[in-house]
């Protein structure tokens, strides 16, 4: 499943990485502890988090995530957005809770398995 299908299905607001929406989402990971995400998420995952500071871009870039979804209508900090644009990391914003975003994306990916 590509990122764009998830963006459309969940009505996500695209804050950066518009040109990366065709990339494939292979799975997902939900978490706010950066060490946990570093150790347990995988390449091609969509990362669901409430963290908005710029270090999330470094983590997503190092782990080669397909994109980051910020939950509860949290907007990326200014420097986060600048860094994400520079590094080409899609940041997407949802008004849903982390629980709901995770469940919906999980179901979408499962359906296409």
């Amino acid at each position, binding site marked *: 499943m590509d990122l764009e299908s998830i963006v459309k299905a969940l009505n996500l607001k695209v804050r950066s990485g518009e040109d990366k929406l065709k990339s494939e989402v292979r799975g997902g990971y939900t978490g706010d502890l950066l*060490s946990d995400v*570093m150790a347990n998420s995988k390449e091609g995952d969509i990362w669901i988090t409430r963290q908005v500071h*710029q*270090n999330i871009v*470094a983590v997503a870039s*190092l*782990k080669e995530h397909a994109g980051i979804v910020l939950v509860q209508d949290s907007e990326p900090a200014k*420097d986060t957005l600048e860094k994400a644009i520079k590094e080409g990391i899609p940041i997407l914003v949802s008004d849903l809770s982390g629980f709901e975003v995770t469940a919906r994306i999980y179901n979408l990916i499962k359906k296409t398995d």
Partner: protein
Amino acid sequence: MDEKPLYDGSFSVVGGNFDNAGEVSSSIKTILKKIGLPSDIIRKAALVAYESEINIVSYARKGMIRLRVSPECIMIEAIDEGQGIPDIDLAMQPGWSTANQKIREMGFGAGMGLCNIKSFSDIFNISSEVGKGTHLKMIIKTNSNSLQ
């Protein structure tokens, strides 16, 4: 590691500067990709470098990360000047952390960093002197026949 290394270099890390945290790890990952190492090896090295970098940023005044790559292995060393660790056994316990509130709010300081470094390395060494600093040395094998 007697033969000429494929790469040998050091990167400085400034304590307390979270704005650029991760940039050294990113450079290390780029170097390892250029060398053409397998992606699972690069993933391990990137994690080890990242957690080491974050530890220096979080707890030390300054430090450096050295990367040395040979045909058999990747060596990553993190050497800092800082407060040091009084009880290494305690620091190695999952979930144990001295991180302040600011660090924790950013999602760091969960007491997972050193454990992650150890579990993603094939060889892990730590030494520390209170008031002076900490020295981590990690080796990641790049092929299954080496370093046995």
